[in-house]
């Protein structure tokens, strides 16, 4: 294992110390328990938006804390959900009296820990609504699985909900917007390489030089199927057609196209992917109104990409364009 770390057990704490030093203008960091919060939180009378999940997906979620996006983020250990005491402490720290929205990705661990935290917060008199994201079309959704994973749409939901909260919308509306973004978006990812959890010391799975894994999540877990390596255009065709057919996105739809890097893929390749995606969507009569290209929800050093499409309307467009000032996303501010 070659990593720029000191000791595996210190990675998360030292990362948080680094974030605190680098971004003290916008965020405050608690090291016991771990969470990142907006410097000016709690904001009186504003709905607070809290998310969290395992570490290793940076900049999600800690990098999205700041004006116009998250009020707090709770990082767990690498690829491990945060614990209820952590989520509770963050929820209390940012609660401004107008309620708190928990944005939770659909993983069994995240759900269980956020559920326990919400129960505890309610006992403390804080109104909590939780919305679960589950946009990954690679997973069959059925009563007999844990359901679809929450992936790329989470980033977009955090931006939209943060903007709505900033605009003074009440908790019920911010939560409904989160559900709307989740229901209007779909994602799918693929990997060219595996990744190594620092504490494990070796790659989670092995992939041959001429192989790729289609339908991966964001935790180095194997995907749905292994295939022979293909060109960027062919890969985009597989991912985009599965996404478009699932919602389904239709001719005439306006979308936000999010091409995400898994952590180890250079921007030069992501733009090759974006080019193919643009061509594909034009062919289907779907108009890209906004885009986001870069590594925003990652899986450590995994090479690969995920594509997320979000169907836009004027309301979502306005909230997407609203000012945001976080270490990971910044415009208009």
């Amino acid at each position, binding site marked *: 294992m070659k990593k720029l770390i000191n000791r595996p057990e210190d990675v998360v704490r030292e990362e948080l110390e680094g974030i605190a030093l680098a971004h003290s203008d916008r965020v405050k960091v608690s090291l016991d*328990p771990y969470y990142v919060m907006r410097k000016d939180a709690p904001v009186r009378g504003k709905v607070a938006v809290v998310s969290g999940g*395992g570490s290793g997906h940076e900049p999600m979620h800690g990098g999205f804390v700041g004006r116009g996006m998250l009020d707090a983020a709770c990082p*767990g*250990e*690498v*690829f*491990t*959900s*945060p*614990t*209820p*005491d*952590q989520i509770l402490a963050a929820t209390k720290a940012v609660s401004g009296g107008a309620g708190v929205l928990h944005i939770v990705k659909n*993983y*069994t*661990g995240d759900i*269980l*820990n956020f559920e*326990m935290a919400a129960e505890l917060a309610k006992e403390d008199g804080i109104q909590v609504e939780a919305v679960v994201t589950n946009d990954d079309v*690679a*997973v*069959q959704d059925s009563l*007999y*699985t*844990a359901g679809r*994973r929450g992936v790329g749409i989470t980033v977009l939901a955090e931006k939209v909900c943060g903007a709505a909260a900033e605009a003074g919308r009440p908790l019920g509306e911010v939560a409904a917007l989160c559900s709307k973004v989740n229901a209007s978006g779909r994602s799918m990812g693929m990997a060219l390489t595996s990744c190594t*959890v620092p*504490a*494990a010391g070796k790659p*989670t*799975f092995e992939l041959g030089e001429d192989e790729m894994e289609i339908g991966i*999540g964001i*935790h*180095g*877990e*194997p995907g*749905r199927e292994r295939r022979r390596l293909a060109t960027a255009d062919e890969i985009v065709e597989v991912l985009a057609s599965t996404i478009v057919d699932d919602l389904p996105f239709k001719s005439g739809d306006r979308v936000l196209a999010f091409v995400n890097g898994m952590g180890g893929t250079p921007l030069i390749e992501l733009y090759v992917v974006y080019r193919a995606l643009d061509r594909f969507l034009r062919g289907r009569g779907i108009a890209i109104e906004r885009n986001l290209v870069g590594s925003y929800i990652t899986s450590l050093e995994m090479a690969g990409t995920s594509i997320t499409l979000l169907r836009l309307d004027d309301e979502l467009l306005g909230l997407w364009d609203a000012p945001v000032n976080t270490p990971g996303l910044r415009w208009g501010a």
Partner: protein
Amino acid sequence: MGVGYPECVSFVRGFAEAVAANREYLTQLDAEIGDADHGINMDRGMRAVLPKVEALTDQDISGLFRTVAMALISTVGGASGPLYGTVFLQLSSSLKGESEIELSGWAEAVLAAVSAVRARGKAEPGDKTMVDALLPAGEALREAAAEGATLSEGLARGTEAARQGMEATIPLLARRGRASYLGERSQGHQDPGATSSWLLMQAAEAAFAKGN
């Protein structure tokens, strides 16, 4: 004759040792169908449990298990934290006020813990989860108690049922947790949660049988 507080402490210590010794094994099983952290997380949790247990002074079995539960919930994360936390929390409630545990009482406490885990994780038997090791173990313990088996005999039957339940998860299709994302690719792999649950039953047997 039943087991008391010292045996319960040995059980907790023994489980911590077993998890530490099988840290890589559990993590490897999880890498095959999950996200490669089960051994790492359980080991971190049980390491955090030990000093809290050493600091206890009032020799209360229920309090001991509650301490274990709270430490696991606040350090493990993932699904295992709340689920193993739930196991120990339910053991604590079931054994409230008890200073000695008989085979029948242990069987009922284990079965109550399985029910609590099923409620929290929404898992059914056969979903390829820890329930598949714990439920047969609880049932074997109850059956042994009903047949008037000795404590050590009953515990051995419980552990053996957990082992068989764990091995029976290999061909199963995962329906809960991260392994369910793999669909048919989850078949042919032993469930890591069922494996750590077998270690739990084994630790209880070793500590409780030795105490008698």
